[in-house]
């Protein structure tokens, strides 16, 4: 592949032969491309390809090891730490970048507060925030603390914050990874509005259908190299996938093997009630893949956090493999063969300041200890195995979790829960931030697990994913089960109707 300087000067913001190394590890190799005013430019590539790194360089958060950034036709050195916002370059970080203990309004205006004679104009800020939140369809008070929001809500706050910055260049690093369809629609409406105003928009995503829909041009990165840039119209989804992974991709979803309707019931929940859940009952069979769908906040996560003892249960009973079970802690659930993979990988999933090995074995640590003494060989072996099994790509095995690419963090988290050798796996948003190639691997992996007799719950806001891999799908709405679909009924229309409350509840317990 020839890498040269394509159209380095005809855009608003251009990268000219940017290279970046962390310590001695090179991550980007002489990448050049340009971003024009009034276009939505998608950047795609496998996990760890260097997309986030490139975006951070182009917004000043990292400085390039070599190469230039050209802004408005002039070679510039961008000010660090978000100072580039003053120049009109705004980045929405892949990782949530909000101060948890502070309120929505305080976060949105952090670093550029409005004040009159040194005193904050809180009314002005609050009223502006109310408008911004309305623009992105968020119905929360500006005084809500970030820590009280769901992840999707946090992401929408981030988006609202970025939208309010009057950007000339808006860079969004996987903004939709944690959003559902409905929220993505709202985002796209805003993006289109900005594009029409002449804002240059950079859009990083692993959801290729979104890329196809929203972007005007696509640039592909692979292993830190620029692979190509072309108009979106010229590419179909398979072309993009091929350019990303460098090979043909077979079917994304594995063939769904016939569910065994007589299989033993692995998990049975009856009459579950919590603060937000009302009288929930369902069964999960051995070897079954059960999808959980519904709108954000419909309570899917809470169901399983309650089962694993993370949220107090007010009523209800749980049996696993016929045995009465009531878990007061994750450890008890784990010992009974149930593990839960959180969707909040930064806040609840990974120790960001630790390396891969510590994170990998943390959940199943007793297995790696004999008489409390850790078996470090065994841990190392586990890491080697997990890296292979889940295709975790970190150029440096000692890398800290916070320095891993988002997708690879997700893979590490998956590997972590699988270390516990569970009989029942609950995966909340399994492929959040994962590239197509790896997605395929994960789906096949889930199918294979089910075939081995492991029962799996997949909570997902990505409709195709739920449809593609589940034997049966439960749709939740406002803290209850709105309906259950299986077999041929698993399709988008049905699910959406239940989720929106259009289908009446066929009690299915």
């Amino acid at each position, binding site marked *: 592949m020839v890498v040269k300087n394509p159209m380095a000067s005809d855009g608003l913001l251009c990268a000219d032969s940017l290279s970046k190394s962390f310590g001695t590890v090179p991550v980007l190799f002489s990448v050049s491309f340009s971003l024009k005013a009034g276009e939505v430019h998608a950047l795609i590539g496998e996990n760890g390809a260097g997309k986030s790194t490139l975006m951070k360089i182009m917004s000043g*958060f990292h400085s390039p090891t070599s190469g230039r950034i050209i802004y408005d036709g002039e070679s510039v050195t961008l000010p660090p*730490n*978000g*100072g580039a*916002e*003053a120049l009109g370059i705004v980045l929405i*970080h892949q990782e949530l*970048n*909000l*101060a*948890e*203990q*502070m309120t929505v309004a*305080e976060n949105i205006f*952090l*670093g*550029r*507060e409005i*004040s009159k004679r*040194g*005193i*904050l104009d*809180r009314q002005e800020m609050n009223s502006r925030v109310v408008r911004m939140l309305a623009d992105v369809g968020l*119905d*929360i*008070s500006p005084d*809500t603390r970030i820590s*009280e929001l769901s992840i999707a809500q946090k992401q929408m706050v981030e988006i609202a914050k970025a939208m309010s910055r009057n950007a000339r260049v808006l860079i969004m690093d996987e903004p939709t990874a944690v959003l559902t369809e409905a929220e993505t629609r709202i985002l796209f409406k805003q993006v289109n509005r900005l594009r029409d105003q002449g804002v240059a928009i950079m859009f990083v995503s692993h959801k290729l259908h979104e890329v196809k829909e929203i972007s005007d041009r696509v640039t592909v990165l692979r292993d830190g190299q620029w692979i190509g840039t072309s108009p979106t119209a010229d590419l179909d989804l398979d072309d993009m996938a091929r350019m990303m992974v460098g090979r043909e991709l077979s079917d994304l979803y594995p063939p769904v093997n016939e569910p065994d309707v007589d299989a033993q019931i692995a998990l049975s929940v009856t009459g579950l009630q919590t*603060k*937000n859940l009302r009288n929930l009952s369902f069964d999960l069979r051995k070897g079954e893949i059960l999808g959980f769908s519904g*709108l*954000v*906040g*419909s309570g899917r996560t809470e169901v399983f956090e309650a089962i694993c003892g993370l*949220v*107090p249960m007010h009523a209800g009973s749980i049996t696993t493999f016929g045995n009465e079970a009531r878990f007061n802690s994750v450890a008890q659930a784990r010992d009974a063969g149930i593990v839960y993979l959180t969707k909040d990988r930064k806040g609840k999933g990974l120790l960001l300041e630790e390396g891969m090995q510590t994170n990998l074995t943390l959940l199943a640590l007793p297995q790696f200890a004999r008489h409390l003494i850790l078996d470090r060989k065994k841990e190392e072996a586990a890491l080697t195995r997990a890296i292979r099994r889940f295709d975790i790509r970190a150029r440096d095995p000692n890398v800290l979790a916070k320095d891993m690419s988002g997708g690879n963090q997700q893979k590490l988290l998956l590997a972590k829960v699988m270390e516990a050798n569970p009989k029942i796996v609950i995966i909340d948003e399994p492929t959040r931030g994962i590239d197509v190639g790896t997605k395929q691997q994960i789906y096949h992996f889930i199918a294979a697990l089910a075939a081995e007799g492991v029962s799996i719950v997949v909570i997902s806001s990505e409709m195709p994913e739920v449809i593609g891999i589940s034997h049966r799908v439960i749709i939740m709405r*406002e*803290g209850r089960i709105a309906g259950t679909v299986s077999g041929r009924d698993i399709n988008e229309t049905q699910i959406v109707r239940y989720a929106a409350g259009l289908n009446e509840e066929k009690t299915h317990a």
Partner: protein
Amino acid sequence: MPELAQTETTARKPKLDLKMYGPAIALVILCIIGFSLNSAFLSEGNITNLLTRSAFIGIIAVGATFVITSGGIDLSVGSMAAAIAGIMIILMNALVDILGTGVLTVVVGAGCAVLLGALAGLANGLLTTKGKIEAFIVTLGTMGIFRSLVTYFADGGTLSLNFDIRGTYRPVYYDSLLGVPYPVWVFAVVAVAGWLLMNRTTFGRYCTAIGSNEHVAQYSAINVNKIKTWTYVIQGLCVALATVIYVPRLGSASSSTGVLWELEAIAAVIIGGTVLKGGYGRIGGTIFGALILTTIGNILNFTDVVSNYLNGTMQGLIIIIAVWLQRADWGKPKD
């Protein structure tokens, strides 16, 4: 979902409020105990004494609230107060010969104290931020340094203010305006200014942001080092102010001046609801925290029911219970 979100918001309010009023409630309970032990507790004289006494720790604690909110800690405040008091006394004694015993000498002395406080705070701040040394170590170090400096200046003994200037300076501690002693006025002004600074200015917001998540703060183009350094400077200024109203009280400073004030100040801050790890600071709570601490000592002086030797036990128990009263998540399900 809209409904859910809403019930959520309204359901949360009461909890917040209880936390908010926790320190005030604890103080009221203490006052009731005090009054039931001895009705003189609520006499005007005692209330005035209590408030005046709280002023020192209170003013210092206001500064400490900023340091702690932004994720730092300052162990040097007690020693710093002693050192500033010492130098101020030496200076004022020397100035008597030049400027006489008038107000001017006092003003110059006080100005110099404020300057010293700012400089000492600046030193702590720069060592922490530029020197990249943990605040705990820096201020443990300067605590030793300041304390030994005052010992050195006083030759191990006591530095006493010239008797001629005392008359001019004394009213700053002992006199009142509208029936309220000057130290209480200063305390009130510092409290209000601190509250405004914390809650109504960008500075306060930046402190919170830094304590909450330094990375986020940095990525929001906040000059983290500058803000952090400023918190220590503010702490230094507060210490200086407290010293300025402390010196006229007994007119002296020695190496035992201000011993353990740092612990008291930090305790006042934490009792008031500020989080030790940073990210959440409450000036109002700090004021109550300081009042609570002083009141505990006051109450113990008001009764001879418990053995003197067990004062520490009572004090410890009351502090723990006071904080427990406000911390326990009443009725909130554990999560």
